[in-house]
């Protein structure tokens, strides 16, 4: 056992862990951050995706000890003022969740995509979320939600336009 200190959504969290513990288990079980879902355990579904040191990673393929001294952000940490972010509101208004199990990962990935690229094309969205699956198949609603946020800051083009061509 060793103690690690990880900044999760802005708060420093210290816990004793075993060297063979996954970041996924550290977040879900030790810190009870339940938006981080455990599903495939092998890096295929992407539902355990978190931000580690400023990049999206799949936490089932990361050791908890690797996060020692670093920053982790989950969907709970994307809102800065306690209000839903634009992409969260758009997910609600477009019904971009069915069972909702994968939604935290999609919201986090879409939020980060829009932050890096405020007007993504359909191809940008597909590429950025290539590591995520939604077994209910809400992909089109997710596209619409991302398009709405993109258009609200520069109306009338981009994702929706490329959707029309598809």
């Amino acid at each position, binding site marked *: 056992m060793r103690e690690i200190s990880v900044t999760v959504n802005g708060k420093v969290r210290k816990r004793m862990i*075993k*060297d*063979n*513990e*996954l970041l996924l288990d550290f977040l879900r079980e030790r810190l009870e951050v339940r938006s981080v879902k*455990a599903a495939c*355990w*092998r*890096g*295929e579904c*992407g539902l355990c*995706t978190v931000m580690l040191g400023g*990049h*999206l*990673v*799949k936490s*089932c*393929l*990361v*050791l908890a*000890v*690797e996060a020692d001294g670093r920053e982790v952000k989950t969907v709970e940490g994307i809102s800065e003022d306690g209000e839903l972010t634009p992409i969260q509101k758009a997910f609600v208004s477009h019904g971009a969740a069915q069972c909702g199990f994968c939604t935290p990962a999609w919201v986090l990935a879409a939020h980060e995509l829009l932050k890096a690229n405020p007007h993504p094309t359909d191809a940008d969205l597909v*590429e*950025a979320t*290539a*590591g995520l699956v939604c077994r209910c198949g809400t992909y089109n609603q997710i596209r619409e939600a991302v398009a709405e946020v993109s258009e609200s800051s520069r109306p009338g083009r981009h994702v929706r336009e490329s959707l029309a061509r598809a």
Partner: protein
Amino acid sequence: MSFGSAYTTLPDFEYHKPTSLEEVIGLMKEYGDDAKLMGGGVGLIAFMKERLMSPAHVIDVKEVKELRQLSNVAGKGMSIGAAVSISELLEGGVLKKDFTVLHEALAKVADPMIRRRATLVGNLCEAIPWVDSPPALIALDATVAIAGPDGSRSVPVGSFIRGPVDIDLSPSEVVTAVEIPRVKGSESAFEKFTGGSEFSLASVAVMVSNGGKSKSAKVVYGAVNSTPVRSEEVEDAIADGITPGSVRRAAEIASEKVECVDDVLATAAYRKHLLRVITTKVLRRMMSR
């Protein structure tokens, strides 16, 4: 047995995080067979979950400064440190112009979250028949730089990969980098067919150089046999230039002469068909550049 337990936990091990190559070599000398090196961990962690590997020591090399190096020396070539992630290689387009074939092969590896963690050297050292980087590296005449307790050595990628999941590396040795020579006036491209799965069923890496008077071509196929297959017959077919006629001939020869295996992913006959398709595709794309 509880449901899925073998797949959700890792065997016990001790974690080490050296910061210099000297430390890594010391640890490997001490633990050797009982240790595994971890770059991005995407392969190792998955293998450990399935108990295909149960090392007593895991040595994380991500912060070893010598292995973090990425250098592109004008006129000489490129050296890619073992701890450089695939995302880092793709960003900034360092490979795009001079090593197009490798850029194209890496751009389609898994997904962006995996590429953020995975390394080129890790991908190579797994030596899994359907991974995409080895054919591209062989087409580029890349070599593997290895350090060990008895000094350093360098091996061409083609002989580093000895067979499926079998590489020319002793338990106490460490791959430090992949080195790619820059060939003046060269053009290259990569193509693969996955049929929608995450594995390549056939891939092809082509490099053509027009240095000096004589032209030369290198064509390497991946995922059709246990190790990458170079085809000198296909190379001969395009040696005088990539034209509609030579593309047709090359595709024909690829399909007839390159040895393919039957396995759970595809039959040999299907792979032979795919060779014709991807050879045509990659060469046509190079022709239209």
